[in-house]
């Protein structure tokens, strides 16, 4: 049965809500800053997600043969996103409180602590995630795929080697150019983490299988 939208309902919806939202977005005199912020942040995040999805879709015929891949994928993306977001938040606090010179130098104690702990977190949690997915795959799909632990561990290792220095460097770069990394890094990292993680997962699976 087709869905019929009554003209009056549509008119009411457009006039009451959509016009208000658009007016708030474009008007310099009555801005709802948080709506504008959400809109802008979402564009970057969504474009990154779509790009990651396009890369994933281009190799889906190879990936579908790995049992448990669709259980691993969301957990892996979440893990990498969390590790890099918390690193970005800590780096943001560091550059704001101690100044950019300290954060810029790898010899700084707090920078070393941040790099070291993020790297160890990534490696340890990816191993735990891999083992969890191994059992979940065994339970749901009745298949023992030991390589899942290796895929999770190796991919996390490679992603961390790329993203941890990139997160640190981009936070400092933004701060040096007068931007507040806290406002930008969230959306930037969501996109970059998805893209890098999907590419690395594809390459690691291709190498192992």
């Amino acid at each position, binding site marked *: 049965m087709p869905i019929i939208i009554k003209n009056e309902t549509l008119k009411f919806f457009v006039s009451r809500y959509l016009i208000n*939202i658009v007016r708030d977005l474009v008007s310099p005199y009555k801005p709802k800053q948080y709506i504008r912020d959400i809109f802008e942040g979402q564009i970057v995040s969504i474009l*990154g997600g779509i790009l990651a999805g396009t890369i994933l*879709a281009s190799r889906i015929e190879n990936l579908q043969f790995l049992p448990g891949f*669709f259980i691993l994928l969301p*957990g*892996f993306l*979440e893990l990498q996103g969390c590790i890099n977001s918390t690193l970005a938040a800590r780096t943001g606090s560091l550059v704001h409180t101690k100044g950019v010179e300290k954060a810029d130098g790898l010899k700084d104690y707090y920078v070393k602590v941040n790099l070291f*702990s993020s790297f160890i977190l990534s490696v340890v949690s990816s191993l735990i995630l891999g083992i969890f997915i191994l059992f979940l795959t065994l339970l749901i799909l009745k298949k023992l795929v030991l390589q899942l632990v290796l895929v999770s561990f190796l991919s996390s290792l490679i992603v961390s080697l790329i993203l941890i220095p990139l997160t640190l460097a981009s936070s400092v770069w933004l701060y040096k150019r007068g931007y507040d990394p806290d406002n930008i890094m969230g959306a930037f990292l969501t996109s970059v983490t998805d893209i890098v993680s999907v590419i690395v997962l594809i390459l690691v699976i291709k190498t192992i299988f």
Partner: protein
Amino acid sequence: MKNAKKILIQSLPALILASTLSSLGGIGLTLVKPKLIVILPLVILFPALNDMIGDYGAILGSKFTTWLYRGSIPTHWYRSKKLKNLVKNVLLIALFYSFLISFLAISISSIQGFPLTFSLILKVTIVTVLTTLSLVILLSLTIFSLGIFFYKKGFDPDNILIPLATSIADFGALAIFGTLIYFFF
């Protein structure tokens, strides 16, 4: 290295919880895998959809706690005009972006040579819109009621609501997305 140990001890449980919950949500995707992999637009939009819903959870949680501490949220939160406006605005933004990601995913699939029909385009759009809107409503209800509950009990909602919101968003998005794919395709 005392600071590194502190970071590891405090972060590891949250990381494990968040990633394992997302993987549990992935079971929903695994169960509909035969349908998912043959419908290219769904694969393309899945990471963007997951990110988007997680972001809305974080936005609702952080705005709610800020207003709660400023004293602008009444005990009966459902009477708050401010919260109603927030949910309304987030729902409209979510609606706009769910149409946008559907459009982008369908366009990219078409460029890649995936055969599209009107029925398929409609189904992909409906699945995306329904997943997003149902999750925003579910997240709002959970965040607001639990936020008030934890606040009354003397907890700091900031420490609980964001991890809770992102976990519900990740798990719920995959579960609802998987269920809708099962019924629609």
